[in-house]
């Protein structure tokens, strides 16, 4: 028989699913809303936190420094920090965030400098705390300047040229266009989101069309119709795939729109002096790259749809299916995240791992690099995984012990 029956099943499942609130939420509402909420939410939080941390004048403590008036005066003159009287419990105070950092000058530091003895100046800070980091940075910069100043004085005293200690200078120059630098970091998340949403979009229909049918008792009704089980599973599979791809497409569109909004918003925040100096969103991802990402995700969506369908079919009820599929989401999230991590580079072995390989190659594509051999290899391997998953799903639908599991 032709595929006519598979298409009839598909058409019915589409109508049926579009009337299901749960499927609609996961397929349409979530992908449309998650991007603006995430980008605007996180963006606003970043501007808030970084802006506040930079605005705050941190309290710092200067320890020791007895009989070292010059060094002390230099530190006291430091702008942008507030020096508070020193106490013995500075470590505790930093931990309690009462002060942000402390600097420990050795005693008779001025004399040590005159005598040419090398002393250690310690800066105490709370690693990982943004505000403590800013305070420590300010202290460190000030001390470096003081050190440079001392070197200069010494050279002058010996009537030596200032460039004696600088035999050459090192200069870095970036050849990547500026938009690529941050693009690689942020754009890497694009395939990650598309992959994750592909799974979440497919999950509800996959359950509803299999375990859901068992639970509602419609499975026996459909099995006594003349549709073959292969066509039945094919029609259902097409519906789950539609949901997965619909979720992915909506997510990409929503991401594009909210990205533009966030970019404009960031620019205005910077113009008014809040937020960082550079707009981290000052890059763009071309239509070609988005198209390529979608193309790479296609076999993966087939793979997810077939796998979810097969697992959900095995379950007796909606709840059972959910408890099987929820851990699966983590199994997909982990390799997808690994692909976003900096330093994980594509190689022939990783190209064989589903999800991870797609996440990695899409990251490259988004930053403008097309490794055609890897793209081919990954597309092919994903297609093989997808075909295997679909084959298993079809086989499971032929098994009475799975269809009538009690």
């Amino acid at each position, binding site marked *: *028989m032709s595929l*006519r*029956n598979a298409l*009839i*099943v598909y058409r*019915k499942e589409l*109508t*049926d699913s579009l*009337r*299901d609130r749960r499927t609609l939420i996961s397929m349409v509402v979530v992908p449309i809303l998650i991007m603006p909420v995430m980008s605007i939410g996180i963006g606003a939080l970043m501007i808030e936190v970084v802006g506040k941390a930079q605005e705050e004048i941190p309290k710092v403590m200067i320890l020791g420094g007895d009989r070292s008036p010059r060094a002390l005066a230099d530190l006291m003159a430091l702008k942008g920090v507030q020096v508070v009287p020193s106490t013995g419990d500075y470590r505790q105070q930093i931990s309690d965030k009462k002060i942000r950092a402390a600097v420990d000058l050795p005693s008779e530091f001025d004399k040590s400098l005159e005598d040419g003895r090398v002393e250690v100046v310690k800066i105490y800070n709370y690693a990982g705390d943004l505000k403590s980091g800013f305070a420590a940075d300010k202290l460190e910069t000030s001390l470096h300047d003081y050190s440079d100043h001392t070197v200069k004085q010494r050279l002058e005293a010996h009537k030596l040229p200032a460039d004696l200690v600088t035999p050459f200078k090192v200069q870095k120059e970036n050849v990547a266009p500026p938009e690529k630098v941050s693009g690689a970091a942020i754009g890497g998340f694009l395939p990650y989101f598309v992959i994750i949403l592909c799974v979440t979009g497919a999950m509800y229909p996959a359950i509803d069309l299999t375990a859901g049918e068992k639970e*509602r*008792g*419609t499975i*026996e*009704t459909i*099995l*006594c*119709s*003349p*549709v*073959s089980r292969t066509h039945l599973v094919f029609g259902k599979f097409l519906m789950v795939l539609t949901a997965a791809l619909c979720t992915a497409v909506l997510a990409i569109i929503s991401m594009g729109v909210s990205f533009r909004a966030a970019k404009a918003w960031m620019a205005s925040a910077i113009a008014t002096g809040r937020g960082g100096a550079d707009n981290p969103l000052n890059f763009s991802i071309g239509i070609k790259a988005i198209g390529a990402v979608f193309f790479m995700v296609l076999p993966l969506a087939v793979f997810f749809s077939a796998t979810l369908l097969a697992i959900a079919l095995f379950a007796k009820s909606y709840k059972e299916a959910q408890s099987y599929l929820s851990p699966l989401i983590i199994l997909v999230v982990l390799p997808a995240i690994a692909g976003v991590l900096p330093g994980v580079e594509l190689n022939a072995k990783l190209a064989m791992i589903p999800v991870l390989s797609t996440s990695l190659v899409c990251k490259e594509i988004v930053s403008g690099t097309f490794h055609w051999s890897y793209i081919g290899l990954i597309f092919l391997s994903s297609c093989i995984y997808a075909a295997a998953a679909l084959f298993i799903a079809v086989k499971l639908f032929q098994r*009475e*012990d799975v269809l*009538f599991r009690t």
Partner: protein
Amino acid sequence: MIEAERLCKVFQDKKRGEVRAVTNVSFTCKPGQIYGLLGANGAGKTTTLRMLATILEPTDGTARVAGFDLVKDPESVRRNVGFLSTATALYGRLSAFEMVQYFARLYGMEDAAIEKRINELFTRLEMNEFRDRRCDKLSTGMKQKVSIARTLVHDPQVMIFDEPTVGLDVMAARTIVQFIRECRNHGKTVIFSTHVMSEVEKLCDHIGIIHGGRLLAEGTLADLRKESGQEDLEDIFVQLVEPYIPKETVAS
């Protein structure tokens, strides 16, 4: 016409091992007749009927249903069979019309023919009032009518009913019983399973008593009365089944 030849079904159960649900069941069911499969719960009625409807595949043996072998050509069998049971639920999010239309399409009917057939069925079964209402919003009686329309839409030669009246109130059960009778009057081959003696006495031309997956006796009610020397169907049933029930169960 249904001709079952030594139908067997063996299930693999993790706890109980091999379960022989149906063993060597053979019978013939002719057009214009109602064949009643009478048995207690777990006797193998549902399994037998599911095999006839090609929902389950026989482990051994076969049957010719409407002239097609159900092992060799299950799809042709399905095209000529209407199957109704309490387990064959409706798609709640489809309307009554869409539900019947979906199955008609799967039977390979053309849209114009479907429209005509559904109009005819809906008028006959008095369903036009809730034609476009979603199935999950229908009452039990209305749902039964939709199921009946679903089994009739392709005008099958053979009708299989698996305990169709279980859990239904008197009125809904009456609709079903009337419907089964109508099927016979239209010359269809009808087989139905039940554990309700009165339904069998009222409806069946031919009776098969099944227990432990085996067909213990077969014939018209008159045949069964003659063979057993009992008048009441319940007494006939107990007399046949009793030797197969473990003693302690009977005593308790």
